[in-house]
């Protein structure tokens, strides 16, 4: 069973620390997006990387349309990984939709997690006036799904060329060549629907695990108002506005991302020690 989960979710464990830190990729990406950031933690932590079923090097045969029609299936993937590795009080770092997946997992099995670090999180992408501004109207999200449909053929050729041009472009790191963001179009589309039409606002107040919200600047996907909303709703949460622009600070601004996480963890352990 344990081995099944490890290969199903392409789990990788690195580093020389005892305390575990899990990095979960955002929508449409695989674990390689965390490479730079994760490396910084290998000295002091046991670094856990994995792919959700349907992305990266996961076992595509395990993909079940029913199971992965909502975030619950992905949450189960995370819980399966925690269980297989027998994790306890692990630090969870989730990008984008993975922030919510980590949050949902912590509601079901809080013992696995000591802290939830949310990078560009959003509990709900749709606007729900007058109280809530998620950033998008339904038509915007449907437009996104259409755009995904229309880029399908482009994807395949794009990645093929990456592989072919490898020799000409030695600067590309080898691990990024593989299947970065190259999910099966049907799975990607279903994941997009599960992600962008989810609404987890009601769950936020039930969260018991302390959390850090890393809010990027000028993030169209998770605007500041959403980060603030999370900060208000999540008990025991910390809010950090980053300099990083966009939605992927772990890739565009890895140094700031690493520093923000470390700063929070140091403070948390100090306060934990004081309280403890």
């Amino acid at each position: 069973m344990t081995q099944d989960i490890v290969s199903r979710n392409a789990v990788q464990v690195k580093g020389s620390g005892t305390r575990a830190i899990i990095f979960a990729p955002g929508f449409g990406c695989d674990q390689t997006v965390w490479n730079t950031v994760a490396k910084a933690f290998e000295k002091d932590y046991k670094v856990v990387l994995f792919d959700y079923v349907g992305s990266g090097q996961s076992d595509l045969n395990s993909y079940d349309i029913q199971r992965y029609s909502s975030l619950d299936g992905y949450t189960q993937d995370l819980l399966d990984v925690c269980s297989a590795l027998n994790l306890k009080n692990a630090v969870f770092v989730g990008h984008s939709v993975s922030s919510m997946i980590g949050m949902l997992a912590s509601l079901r099995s809080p013992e696995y997690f000591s802290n939830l670090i949310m990078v560009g999180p959003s509990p709900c992408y749709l606007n729900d006036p007058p109280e809530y501004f998620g950033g998008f109207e339904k038509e915007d999200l449907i437009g996104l799904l259409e755009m995904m449909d229309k880029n399908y053929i482009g994807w395949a050729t794009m990645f093929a060329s990456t592989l072919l041009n490898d020799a000409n472009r030695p600067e590309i790191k080898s691990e990024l060549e593989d299947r970065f963001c190259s999910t099966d179009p049907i799975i990607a589309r279903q994941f997009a629907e599960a992600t962008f039409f989810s609404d987890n606002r009601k769950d936020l107040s039930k969260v018991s695990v302390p959390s850090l919200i890393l809010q990027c600047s000028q993030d169209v996907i998770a605007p500041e108002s959403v980060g603030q909303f999370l900060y208000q709703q999540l008990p025991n949460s910390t809010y950090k506005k980053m300099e990083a622009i966009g939605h992927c600070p772990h890739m565009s601004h890895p140094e700031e991302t690493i520093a923000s996480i470390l700063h929070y963890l140091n403070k948390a352990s100090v306060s934990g020690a004081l309280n403890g």
Partner: protein
Amino acid sequence: MILSINQTLLQFLEFKRDQVEGKHFHEILTVSSRIFFQLYFVPLIKTNRKIEEMYISLQSSNGEEIPVMVNALSKKGVEKTVSECVVFPIRKRNEYENELLIAKKESEDALAAMHKANAELEGTLKALEAKQEKLLELNEQNRKFKIDTKKELELAKKIQKTSLTDPISNKLIQIDAFHRASSELSGDIYGFYQIDEHRYGIILLDVMGHGVSSALITMSLHSLFQRLISFGVKSEVVMKELDLHLHRLFQNNEEARHYCTAISLIVNTDEQKIEYTNAGHPPAFWQDTRGKQHELKTTNVPIGMFEGIEYTSNSISFSGGDRLLLYTDGVTDPLSFNHLSALLKENASSPIGVLKEKIIDSLDNQKNKYHKSDDQCFIIIDLI
């Protein structure tokens, strides 16, 4: 950030240069494209250093959506990384692609509908197979039941046959009979018994209908008439007792009520007299030595029909060489009364066995199977 933009694209977008240069690239994207840009364009340009043929939508100053194809190349500078983007408007191509996508969606829907219909069909087929299986099972049960029933009926037939009396043959009288059931069991029954040195009691009954219910009644009547006749009870008394027995049998069950025709004779060879009672039965033939035929006609109504009927008897005197033929309507229906009469006449001098065979042959040669649907029984009595 948009560092520089050419005039052509500005015209497309209906922006002035200073409105976009220095602004975020999002400024010229639709909302959907902004998410897509963040999800795919940014990670890809970072890892691949180039984008080929990415479809996104730009947004003009007046909010108009412009579908474009983007190619981009990322160049690492000393201070910053610059991406050069080339965009082609693909309005017409986009319409074409939309059509393609609609067609794709339609074909996917059709495929899904077909899969659904197939699944339903498979479900129906499975249900049908299960039903057929059940039917075969029931059929098998039915077959076994039939075999069991047939065995039971054959056994019952044997029991009914054993209740029939054997031929009597001595120097004063010869009695022989024929009995054939239309189905497994017969509604006809007969009996003949030697009462004492000179007296013989003979009876022939035909219970209405045939098959199991009629046969059961014949067996019930048989146990009664066997005792009564063997005791030497008079024919009209025998008839009255059988009548009472039937009324008792059905007094609380009108639906099951059966009536029965019967003819009962007491032959006295010493006095050369016959007393008989005919309860609604076809008349028996009495053929004297000169070949003249008489009939032992009905004296009373059938038994089991009306309550409180008194039965009577008639008496005839015979002489040696006379012959009697008693029969049920299962014999005259196919052969006709006249044919039977003629057979009897033609074979006046034939031994009893020969006459019996002739009648059976005539019955067997009847082509009309309909008439074989009734039980057949006859008794021949030769007075010597």
